[in-house]
């Protein structure tokens, strides 16, 4: 088993009103970032887990997203990165 650190991005599904994103975009405009077209505020989750290999770590995290970490009615998720570390459990 190797210990992996898997990062997941969860964002509001496009087309669903995202008042937080809009508020942040408005604030950025106020600060002079005129080029900002859109902002989406979501969650960044880091899961540390032991798995036999990289693919298994990713597969397992994907299943976690489908079951709990994201709500498919309103959110999209993507696995942003999978990092193996040497501190794996025996």
């Amino acid at each position, binding site marked *: 088993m190797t210990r992996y650190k898997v990062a997941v991005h969860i964002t509001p599904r496009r087309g669903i009103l995202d008042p937080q994103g809009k508020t942040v975009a408005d604030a950025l405009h106020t600060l002079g970032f005129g080029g900002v077209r859109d902002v989406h505020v979501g969650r960044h989750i880091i899961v540390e887990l032991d798995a036999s290999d990289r693919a298994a770590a990713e597969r397992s995290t994907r299943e976690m997203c489908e079951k709990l970490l994201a*709500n498919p009615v309103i959110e999209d998720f993507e696995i942003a990165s999978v990092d193996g570390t040497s501190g794996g459990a025996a």
Partner: protein
Amino acid sequence: MKFGIVTFPGSNCDYDAYHAVIDQLGEEAVYLWHKEHDLKHCDVIVLPGGFSYGDHLRAGAIARFSPVMQDVIAFAKRGGPVIAICNGFQIACEAGLLPGALLRNASLKFVCELVQLRVESSETLFTNRYERGAVLRIPIAHGDGRYTADDDTLDKLEGEGQVVFRYVGGPGDADEWWSPNGAMRAIAGIVNDAGNVLGMMPHPERAVDALLGSADGLGIFESVLARVAA
């Protein structure tokens, strides 16, 4: 008739529901602890309001997997009546007992006020003691009450008479829809396809005594009593 009121860590309307059933409806009620796998032969289950598991991740997302919920889901699938209020509504959506989801209020602010709800269907298990079109005064208190679903789901809910309550009486025309939380089509409450699960953001259990401002919510409990006891 016996009501089972589920208590999760963070539930805070369980006692209000208990009071509504015991003192105002005059029926039996018991609490069901979230770690139990026993619905104690209840006839109706109430998923009360609150902030189960601190609303961590998403409101209702963790509670949905608690032990008692597996029994509540099985009970609902057998046709057992479930009244899911506020956080209970969020849990029921997360559990797939009801379509859609409840998102952060469009204002990004917690709203706590007495609102007006129009009864959109008086045919349901939970609204048969109301007249269709009646306007009820019932409080809301939530930060994540923006009902959201895709257009097909919304059209179906409307077409099948599953939209039970809608917010009305906003700052403009009294009859106009108005969402205090940005809910799509001003939806405040719905029932599932089979009609045995009611989800609503407003708190009928807090509107069961005229002395405290309104008794308009009692009709929901009376409706289910009339139908289930019959």
